[in-house]
Structures are given as C-alpha cells and as structure tokens.
C-alpha cells in the first residue's frame, strides 16, 4: 500500500480527477457554471447538491466505522426525520421542525449506541433492528401517505442558496467544518482511533470507550436526520417508503472509498466526504452519458472493487511479487 498510495488521499483525488475527466468526455458542458437568481447552476453544482445527503451520512458513518462499528439504520433514520419534518412543516416554525427532526435522529442514535455500547450487541445486528423498524416508524408518522408541504422555510432548506451555493451544499460544508473542528480540535479523534484500533487496550489506558461508542452513534443519527430533512425539503414531501432507501450502503461505500478500514482505527472525515463526491460524480456522469442507469450499479461495483484492491495488503503483496518476477525475468 505504501508503494501504491504514497500519500493519504492521493488515490481518492486521482480517482475523482479521472472520473471528472470521463464525465467531461461524455458531457462536454460538464464544467460549465452559470449564475442565475443568486444561485450557481451547472453539472458540478448538481453533483455537490445531489451528493449532499450521502456526504452528510458519511460524516456520521465514518466515525462509527472508526470505532469498528457500522450503522445500517441511517437510511431509515432519514425516512423518520423526513416524515417528522414534513408533517410539522406547515404548522410549526422552522426551528421547531428542525429540533423535532434532529431530536428524532438523536434518539435513534442513542438507541443504536445503547444496543452496541451498553448491551454489547454486534453493530451490524443492532443497527439492522432500526433499519427494519425505522421505516415502519416513518410510515406510521406519515400514515402510509406521501406527506407534502409548502412551508417556504423548509423548501428553502432544499432549494435555496447561500452565497450562490445551494443550501444543502452549504450545510454539508458547514457540518464538515464543524465535525473537523470538534473531532480534530479536541482529543476525540485520537480516542476514537484508539478505541477502534484496540478497544480493550484503550479501555485499560483509561479511555471511556463506551461513552465514545455511544457518542459516535448519536452523532451518526443526527447527521442522518439532517440528511433526511434535506432530502424531504428537496422534494417538498416525505416518502417513508423510499426516502434514504439503500443510502446506508452508499454511505458505507463513501467511507470505504475514503480509505477508512471497516476494521476500525484510522479515519478521515474529509476523505469520507470526498468518497461521497466520487460516488455522486459517477452517478451524474452515467446519467449525463445517456447510458441506462442500470450501468450505474455495475460501474459503482467496479470502482469499489478497484479501491478495495488498492487498499488490500495481500493485493499489494501480489502486485509486488508480480513486479519482482518480471524484474527477475528481465
């Protein structure tokens, strides 16, 4: 890996550049930007905007994965928070709507964290519970209908602009800055990496590993709830069946593309968000190219395989061996 990835993040940046270049080939207007009504438009902005929910999810997911966990319930939490936001939007002010939706995410995160940190359940099983139940809860909230709303405040959250940037993009950037400040500005980053790297050793060193694990699931729940609100605001309605469907997998993918190991330990917030961008750049490129969207899934699988191979020490070993063999032959 040291041979193939001389510096952290280089592989991801190269991948993004390659995909952008391919996008440029299939769609010559890909890099065009124009300003209209105080908001930027163009494919690039579109990538950022569409990528926001998954980027937000990956901000939470990366910390969970750093503790050697996983959160399968983020898609369901998106559905719950979207349903709550849509149901309250026309009767309450934005602060209350946001507080209720994010509060729901916090409670969901507490539940997951309780199961994992306190009861010691395996994260994949523990969060599977909410993954299944959460969509049911969301459907109960919306009473099985698609709840629409017209509150201009909430609509602005999905479609407005701040300094020319779509609001979801601004929120995602804000959350990225906030999490970097909190995680790297405090000792949280080190303690999370230590917990994920070796929980027993960290506990014996006096790290409050339980509190750490609980906290990352709560954070992940809040991030998912925010993503859910944005997704609902974007379509001006909440669809409990489809909101955030399968997005947990995209979020995990983004984290993995961002170079964090599913075995916990080292993580990077920025690279996880970059991973989400890579995924969305691919999605948008395939849509623009006019190929059927089914290709999307295959291409995605191909990219994941490539990234994982690059990260695998065994593969590096094989590649190294092949190179040595070639050299000896020569």
């Amino acid at each position, binding site marked *: 890996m040291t041979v193939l990835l001389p510096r952290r993040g280089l592989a991801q940046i190269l991948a993004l550049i390659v995909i952008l270049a391919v996008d440029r080939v299939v769609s010559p207007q890909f890099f065009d930007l124009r300003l209209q009504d105080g908001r930027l438009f163009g494919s690039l902005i579109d990538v950022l905007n569409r990528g926001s929910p998954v980027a937000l999810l990956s901000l939470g997911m990366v910390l969970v994965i750093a503790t050697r966990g996983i959160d399968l319930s983020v898609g369901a939490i998106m559905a719950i928070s979207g349903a709550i936001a849509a149901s309250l939007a026309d009767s309450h002010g934005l602060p209350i709507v946001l507080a209720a939706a994010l509060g729901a995410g916090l409670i969901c995160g507490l539940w997951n964290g309780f199961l994992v940190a306190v009861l010691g359940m395996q994260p994949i099983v523990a969060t599977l519970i909410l993954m299944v139940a959460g969509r049911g809860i969301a459907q109960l909230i919306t009473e099985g209908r698609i709840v629409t709303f017209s509150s201009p405040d909430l609509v602005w959250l999905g479609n407005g602009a701040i300094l020319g940037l779509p609001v979801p993009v601004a929120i995602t950037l804000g959350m990225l800055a906030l999490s970097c400040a909190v995680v790297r500005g405090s000792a949280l980053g080190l303690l999370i990496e230590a917990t994920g790297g*070796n929980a027993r050793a960290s506990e014996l060193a006096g790290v409050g590993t339980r509190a750490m694990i609980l906290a990352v699931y709560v954070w992940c729940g809040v991030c998912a709830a925010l993503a859910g609100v944005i997704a609902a605001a974007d379509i001006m309605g909440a669809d409990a069946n489809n909101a955030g469907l399968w997005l947990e997998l995209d979020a995990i993918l983004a984290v993995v593309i961002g170079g964090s190991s599913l075995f916990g330990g080292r993580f990077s917030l920025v690279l996880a968000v970059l991973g989400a961008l890579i995924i969305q750049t691919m999605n948008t490129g395939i849509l623009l190219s006019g190929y059927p969207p089914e290709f999307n899934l295959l291409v995605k699988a191909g990219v994941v395989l490539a990234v994982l191979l690059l990260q695998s020490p065994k593969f590096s070993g094989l590649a190294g061996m092949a190179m040595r063999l070639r050299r000896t032959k020569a």
Partner: protein
Amino acid sequence: METSSDSVACLLEVRGISKSFGAVRALQEVDFTLRAGEIHALLGENGAGKSTLIKVITGVFARDAGNVRLGGDDVAPRSAKAVLQAGIATVYQEVNLLPNLSVAQNLFLDRQPMRFGVVREGEMRRRARALLADFGLDIDVAAPLGHYSVAIQHVTAIARAVDLSARVLILDEPTASLDRHEVDILFGIMRQLAKRGIGIVFVSHFLDQVYEISDRITVLRNGRLVGERDTASLARIELIRMMLGRELVETTSARAATREHQPRDVCASFENFGKSGYVAPFNLELHHGEVVGLAGLLGSGRTETARLVFGAERADGGQARVEGVPVRLHSPRDGVRHGFGYCPEERKTEGIVAELSVRENIVLALQAKRGLHRPLARREQNEIARRYVRMLDIRPPDPERPVGLLSGGNQQKVLLARWLATSPRLLVLDEPTRGIDVGAHSEIIRLIRELCDDGLALLVISSELDEIVTYSDRVVVLRDRTHVEELAGEAIDVTNILAAIAADGASHEVHA
C-alpha cells in the same frame, strides 16, 4: 534430561519435535512418551510449549522436524482429521461441540445411524444412552447439549472421542471450569478409561490434581523438555523447580541486598480486597519507592490480583485506599484517575494500539486522563514522545512509526512510557520482561529500579524468580488464588519463594 525406564510398551512416541513460528522457536527437539493405560501430566508455565506440542501431535500445526509414532506406526502429519482417525483425540478446555444440537446428535455427529438416507433418531438416542451409561451418566440425550453443565459437556466430548476409537486421549485443562465434585466424576472416568488401555495426556496447572490423578509427569520449559518423572517419586518442590527453571541454587542470587530502605509512606492499600471465584480477599500495602513482587505459578492469582488493584476488574468486597483516603475502584478509568498504571501481560491484545504511532500510544493514557476537552496540542505530544523515546531508548527513535512495527521490547517500553507520561504514583507491571530479548530485558529491570528510586510504588509480576528476587523489596506469594505468604528483606530468596509456592505439597508426598 532424564527418562524413566522403557520397560512398558509405548503407545505414543514423540521424538525430536521442533516447531518455529517465524523467528520464535516454540519447540526445540522435544520428546514425549505415553504408555498404554497411563495418565500422563504435561506441565509447564505459560509459553512453555504445551499447547504447541499438543497441536503438533494432533496435526493442527505442521512440525518442522521430528516424528510421532502411534503404537509403532508413523503418524503422518497430514491433517487434523487424519490424526483423529489414527486414534488421537483431543478435548479442549472450551468444548468444541455444538451446544444447540442434542447430546445424541453431538455424540454421533458426522456418523449418524442412517436408514434409507434418513437419520434413525431412536437408534441414535439408544446408542447415545448406552454410550453415556458407560461413563455413569444418565441424562436426557435428546436435550440440547447447551442445557447441561460444563462438566457434562466435557464428559460428552470425552465419550465422543473415546467412541471414535481413540487410543490416545488428550485433555487440555479439562478441570479449569469444574467444581470439586465434577472433578471427581471426571477423574473417575479418566481412571476407568486408563484401565481399558487408553493413554491419557492431562494438561493442567492445578498441581494438586496432577498429583492426585497422574502416573507420570513431563515438564516443558521455554519450548524444551525439562524432564519426565514418575509422579510418585517427584517431590512437589522439585516439580516446581523444574517448571520455573530453578536448579538447586541456595545462593541468594544477584539480589542487591545493599539497598536499605527507610520506611516510606503508604501509597495505596487494599483491605480484604477480593472477588469471589477470581481471587480470595487479600490485604496489601504498597509504599512509595518500593517494589513488591508477586510470585506464584500460572493460574495462582497473580494477574487477577494485578487487575483488581488497577481496577481492570471490579472487586466485590473490601476497601481500597489511596494515600489513606478510601476510593472507588470500579474501572480502569478510576485506576487512572487515582494515578495508577497497568502494563498487562498480553501486550498485543491489551496494551498497544498497533496501527497508531509511537507518539499516539504514548500520549493515550495521559489524554484519557485529561479528558476530551483538554487536548494535548501536537507540539506537546511531540515533546512528550521525544522525551520518552530518548529516556527509554525506544528504537527506532521515530515517534511517528506505527507501534505494531516495533519489537516486543520496544513495545513494552512504549507502554511504560504511556504510563510514565501520566506521572503515576503506582505502576502495576504484569510480566514486563516476557518475550523480550536479553538486552531489553536487563534494561527494563534497571528501569524498574530507577522508577522505584524516584518514589514510585511498583507491583511487579514475574515468573522469573531470579528477576523478582533481584528487584523486589517485598514478595507476595500466591497459590490457588490466595495470597499465602509475604517475604521481606533477607527472607527474599528463590528457595523461600519455592517453599511457599510448594507449601501444601507435604501431604501429597506422604500420600505418594
């Protein structure tokens, strides 16, 4: 190396077995002989090579050199399954059966009586009952195995092994989780099997049980054969010498007897501190500037004592005091808060965070102690890491290197540095020199002395009695999870420690 007479027919002959893992030589030319119908204890401390030897015999590990003969035929080291078919069966401490299947299914797994492709449940149960009746067990064989006690699961595993026409039965720590009554049942079965001509290898660290059940004893140490003796003629103190590697040296080894200590203040004290089923309540006082050694055999309660003292395990009775003040000691966090530090024996699984750098590993405990909101700036971290890398001579002297890439000795120093950075008042070191090369070994012992001179209280566990004698001001001796003796000053020497460890062996020697 001495071997008792070979007059009786050998059942299992192991000759010149060697096995290395990387650079570590786990076994070096080990011989082992098992006769038909005998119960043969295989003994040794941690890392002596018992498990490796068993795994080589059973074909789990491929051997580097040597051969295994069963009843005169070579046992090819092909696979674990082939060895099992040849007639060598093993029952491990954790029973390798399926708790969710019935007792009968477990007994006949992979060889169920069939008719027309259908398992004959009734026939299987009948045979299971008959089989277990031989072992004095009358239980509902249709109930899931997991419903029964560990003892019954063990007997089931043994019954299965014997029924697979085992000629050699290896029991690895079979009594570790059994109570006295269950042990008696198991021993009854073992004697009965031995009478039938089966050779039994019994691995245990309960010496009382070894003397009770075994005919002969083989002792390994550091991957080498120390000796093979008849149990009846082997005094307990001699056995312990063989296991711990002490020859009959009466000289008080390199003890720095010149160090005279003026009594110092009590740093931490423990009164009636204990946990049932873990370690019996003990009283222990640790003074500033004093090294207290914990000596005893494997499983005697040394590590358990250390974990209670640090707070890694929660005591269910007694009172801990720090500088005379009663304190709560429920978790490692409590221990760290009171200024304790603990370097566990299992460095890799409980000590280092392998993928993090030397710097991050060193500052971890200090950062945990300071809390989240008071992060150590990178500059401070660098400074701390550099200071300890220099002070303890950690090599290579690169604070950004992942600690997993360092040698064992240097990892141990990183762990010491982690605790020293927290300015502790008490350090608990569990086997600080295990698995460390000779150079680093003496360095760590020198460090222990220096830390102590700086006023730190130290509680050190070691299997190397020489070592304990060298640096300890007091030695607490443990046996059977109980603190049995405390030696101080001139009384600290290898002979006295051995005598204390072996103390209750007298009755057995009479009995033998």
